[in-house]
């Protein structure tokens, strides 16, 4: 027999032997001791206390204790209280009484122990339930703490990230800004929480930003835009604003998270690069123009030199005393020949530039202008110029060379922006289109510059006429030649606020 088995056996003996017997013995002894004095008061053999003892034994000791109590009680009653007294025998007339007692006692033991069992099952169940509830409660508290801790850490993280972070509700209203954003925005941080952050954007960036943000909100798509954000010191810096929707489990957008990345350095670098690039292209343009001019000049100078020499000689022959008419005539003959040669040079130069790459495509003028506005955006920002487009809807398409026409628009737009450098008022460049009847479309570029003088008005489209110190004087001349090649007209007008350049193109049938 192993120790475990012995242990189990002893526990088993304790549980089902000693403990029930002891309980039963105690109850029955108490009942017997109380019954002795009471039997003198009551005439019939007084056995009710034994019932109580049996009930108690069965209740507290279980069914075994109940049966032990029944046996003990029966023996004690038979011995002490049923005649003949102090004998184990039972008188004939008392046998039915004893039988009734034993049956009742058994019934009481069974019922009491059953009740007890049922009750303890219920209690057990309740205890278990309570234990479980306690356990659950503890768990819940623990996880609550964990969540709080995690949230605290997350918040610490968002506060620690050296970027500006915000959270907005589904409508785009900001609910939370991290410390960096609050520090950067300064006094207006409170209003930022209440209103949308459009109020801290640069006026020129706000409309575009609003459009992008609203469409992102509607579509539930991520949003990204570059814009100038006003800092606490009132100065603007360029930021890359990026926002992502956060969806709840049912796929609905729960909130928006946004981050502002400072790109001021990058932006200014980019601007410098861009302007360097522009300078370069302008430089190379004038360079190639200069080279071209030099070669044309050389080509023309040769016949001109010969012409001038012969012409001078001719005059001298005629002025001589006496006049040498035959030499003069020869010189004049050569002059005629040389003139033809010079004219040929001019013709060659012209054929070099004319219509060699003739292109006509069905083009939407408005979309050309929209593209152009995109191209000009950086330039406009650098010059603090706002570009406003006023494009007529449903314009018919034009048969044009889109590159050339865009070149014209670009030239006019840059002219307009340059005209506004150094003026005090709002620098607004308006590009508009409109239909003139069904046959023509007009496009205009209007600036708020100082306008032009009457003397310039007649010559501004001529080549080499410029009012700009580093201008080539070719811009408007090229514009005019492009527009005229398209069978259109171009002119300039003085408006009450500045200059309007306007060109008209025919709608092809």
């Amino acid at each position, binding site marked *: 027999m192993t120790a475990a088995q012995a242990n189990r056996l002893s526990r088993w003996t304790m549980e089902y032997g000693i403990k029930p017997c002891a309980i039963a013995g105690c109850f029955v002894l108490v009942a017997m001791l109380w019954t002795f004095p009471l039997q003198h008061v009551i005439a019939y053999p007084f056995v009710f206390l034994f019932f109580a003892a049996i009930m108690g034994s069965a209740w507290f000791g279980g069914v075994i204790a109940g049966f032990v109590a029944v046996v003990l009680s029966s023996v004690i009653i038979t011995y002490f209280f049923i005649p003949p007294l102090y004998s184990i025998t039972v008188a004939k007339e008392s046998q039915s009484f004893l039988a009734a007692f034993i049956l009742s006692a058994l019934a009481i033991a069974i019922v009491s122990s059953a009740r007890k069992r049922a009750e303890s099952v219920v209690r057990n169940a309740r205890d278990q339930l309570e234990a479980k509830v306690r356990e659950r409660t503890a768990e819940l508290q623990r996880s609550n703490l964990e969540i709080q801790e995690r949230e605290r850490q997350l918040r610490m993280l968002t506060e620690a990230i050296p970027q500006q972070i915000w959270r907005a509700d589904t409508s785009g209203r900001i609910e939370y800004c991290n410390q960096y954003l609050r520090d950067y925005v300064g006094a207006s941080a409170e209003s930022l929480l209440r209103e949308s952050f459009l109020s801290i954007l640069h006026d020129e960036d706000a409309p575009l930003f609003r459009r992008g943000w609203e469409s992102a909100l509607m579509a539930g798509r991520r949003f990204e835009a570059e814009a100038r954000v006003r800092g606490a010191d009132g100065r603007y810096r360029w930021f890359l604003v990026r926002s992502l929707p956060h969806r709840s489990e049912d796929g609905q957008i729960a909130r928006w998270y946004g981050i502002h990345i400072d790109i001021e350095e990058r932006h200014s670098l980019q601007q410098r690069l861009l302007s360097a690039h522009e300078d370069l292209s302008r430089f190379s343009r004038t360079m190639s123009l200069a080279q071209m001019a030099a070669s044309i000049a050389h080509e023309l*100078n040769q016949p001109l*030199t*010969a012409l001038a*020499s012969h012409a001078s*000689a001719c005059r001298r022959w005629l002025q001589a005393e006496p006049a040498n008419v035959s*030499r003069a005539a020869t*010189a004049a003959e050569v002059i005629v*020949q*040389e003139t033809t040669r010079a004219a040929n040079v001019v013709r060659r130069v012209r054929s070099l530039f004319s219509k060699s790459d003739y292109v006509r495509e069905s083009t939407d003028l408005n979309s050309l202008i929209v593209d152009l506005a995109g191209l000009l955006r950086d330039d406009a920002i650098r010059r603090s110029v706002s570009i406003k487009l006023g494009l007529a809807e449903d314009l018919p398409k034009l048969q044009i060379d889109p590159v050339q026409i865009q070149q014209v628009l670009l030239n006019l737009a840059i002219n307009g922006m340059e005209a506004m450098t150094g003026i005090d008022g709002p620098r607004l460049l308006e590009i508009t289109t409109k239909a003139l009847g069904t046959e023509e479309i007009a496009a205009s570029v209007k600036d708020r510059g100082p306008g032009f003088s009457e003397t310039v008005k007649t010559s501004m489209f001529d080549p080499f006429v410029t009012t700009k110190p580093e201008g080539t004087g070719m811009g408007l001349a090229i514009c005019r030649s492009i527009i005229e090649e398209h069978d259109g007209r171009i002119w300039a007008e003085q408006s009450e606020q500045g200059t309007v350049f306007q060109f008209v193109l025919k709608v092809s049938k």
Partner: protein
Amino acid sequence: MNNVASNSVPTVFTVDDDAAICAGLCDLLESAGLKTRQYSSAEEFLESWNPNMPGCLVLDVRLPGMSGMELHAKLAEAGASLPVIIMTAHGDMPMVRKALKAGAVEFLIKPFQDEELLRAVEEAFAVDRAQRRAEKLVNSIQARAETLTERERQVMDLVATGLTNKEIAEKLYLSVVTIKLHRGQVMRKMQAETLADLVKMSERLNPTHDSDRAGA
């Protein structure tokens, strides 16, 4: 091209690959009564060039083969004193500077006025005349110097350096009287009227410290 003609009348030599320009220039120059010759390349000019021909060269910068600047350099190298007028259709300053530094009399940018060319040619002729006169003078001095004996030449050179008769006598181990005799002989043969004349002539014969055209 014979020597008789070339020695008498100065000629304008025009070099330009553009025949029309060449013809035009010559027509103009002839109308001013000048003698001209046309060449279409530097090589063609060099072939027929005779250093004895007086006049000037009107040269285009851009030529096929040898360029105008190269021809100019080559003439200077050969010791030719022919004045050069440079023409170009490209009036870039570096080239102008280069041409004038190389000794061009004038730089003309095409197209130019007739007066500009005529004035330049006039100037070039003047330069040429002066140079040729100076050259002739040196030649005659040289011819006279050749009639001197070796000792007389020695005495002349020492006189020209500024030494006194006594110093010369000491240097040549001769008596002062002998030096005086030699000296009189030198003055006579060199046809020098004064001591200063003799010094000048000696300088022309021995152009050590100055340009050979100095004083021309």
